[in-house]
């Protein structure tokens, strides 16, 4: 099993969710996060005063999938989340040791 963690632009959440649903992904977790990368922050102007905002709002999605689906999921997320602009985000893939569905006690891929 792999944990796919993607940090994307907030307005790309819906396209990513729809694309993942289409290929049969049955669940994911979403968090509103802030951070910076190459895009750095931005400035906001209120009453003529410039405020530098160092951390930009992003959305982090996390999903655990069987090993053989990793390439497909990464591709689908990239296709759906890409704007071509700096700040589109990143995808990370991490090994997952074990899993369990709390309601039934199923483990491994069956719990996904």
């Amino acid at each position, binding site marked *: 099993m792999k944990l796919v963690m993607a940090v994307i632009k907030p307005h790309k959440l819906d396209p990513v969710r729809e694309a993942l649903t289409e290929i049969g992904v049955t669940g994911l977790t979403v968090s509103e996060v802030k951070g910076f990368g190459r895009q750095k922050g931005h400035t906001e*102007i*209120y009453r003529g005063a410039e405020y530098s*905002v160092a951390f930009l709002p992003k959305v982090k999605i996390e999903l655990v999938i069987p090993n053989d689906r990793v390439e497909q999921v990464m591709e689908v997320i990239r296709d759906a989340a890409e704007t071509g602009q700096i700040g589109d985000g990143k995808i990370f893939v991490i090994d997952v040791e074990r899993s369990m569905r709390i309601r039934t006690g199923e483990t491994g891929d069956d719990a996904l």
Partner: protein
Amino acid sequence: MLPLARFGTAILAVLLLPMPAIAADTLNSGDTAWIIVASALVLFMTLPGLALFYAGLVRSQAVLSVVMHCVGIACLMTILWLVAGYSLAFGDSVGGWIGNLGKAFFIGVGKDSIHGSIPEVVFAVFQMTFAIIAPALIVGAYVERIKFSGVLIFSGAWLLLVYAPVCHWVWGGGWMAVLGVMDFAGGIVVHATAGISALVIAMMLGARRGYPEQVRPPHNPGMTATGAAMLWVGWYGFNGGSQLAADGGAGMAIAATHIAAATAGMVWMIIEWTKFGKPSLVGAVTGVIAGLATVTPASGFVGPLGGLILGAAAAIVCFYAVQLVKHSLKIDDSLDVFAVHGVGGILGSLLVSFLALAMFGGGGLAEGQTAMGQLGVQAIGVGVTLVWSAVLTVVIVKVTGALTGGLRVSEDQEIEGLDLASHGERGYDIGR
């Protein structure tokens, strides 16, 4: 000759005082109904209008503290107004400087005593709502870093030592009223006093931690716009109610007020659009408030065209006043109380000398008075008010600081935010 002279005196008195002091002392139920409604509108300006306007402009860890400042001030000012404030402002004059204590605890202000054409208790309550919002305006100068005890002590002392005397001078038959100073609804009494005092306390208290580079931007512009909208609506009562009658004068005051607010909002938008590329919501509503503050002293003396001119002037002058105070003088009057309210109130108090003329659609000046002559009178009124307010504020801040062991919270508390540090509450808690 004699009736004519008497008529002239009557006109003069009506122009000098916001209240028709010489009107027949018979109760008019229409007037009474309007002033009761106007009182509610003016209270609504502070709670929750001003509270939300300011709360949206601070960082999220101080949102409740700002609302609490406004609530605390509303409670304390009410009590002080009853105990002594009303009497100091509107009691029998002691040499034109201050009212005596004959009306302390509203003595003699029963439901049967009449002020003009309304019950005096209605007048006292209407004026009480002004006494609440004036010190509440100053909140914007000291947000995110002041002790709550300091807010209460400072505001209470300020009400009795700054607001009540100036209110007496202008509206209570004091020396400015005799001199002929025109201040329809509080450009001098409310906005100039609060504005200059805000600047002084901001300088004495020192800037927010990290000012100017690292202070946080307004945490909720939508909240600020909501509060500004309530202020805008409430201002119908502030200026329209100051006519103290339900008549054409009140209607014209409301028309001028609304036109000034809208024009100032529009002009501020245009300034930001051309200077920064984008018109912001915070900017637009700041313009509206600047317009409202500026038209306040003039509202009952000018016509719709006067409102238009005052609004445009307000946006331009107050926009650059913000830049001057914040960026050139580096004074952290955090929410621009002086630049928006103070400068607006002063500007309107001076411009009324010209815009009250019939050629601008105004009601005219006192008989025999010229625009330049009136400008001199207005300048004296504004100048003395600024000096009095600034000097007394220095004294009050010093004494308050001594009583509270320093007016500022500790650095740790400032970082944590006043909501938790001073009030043990949080405005926002994800998951609750």
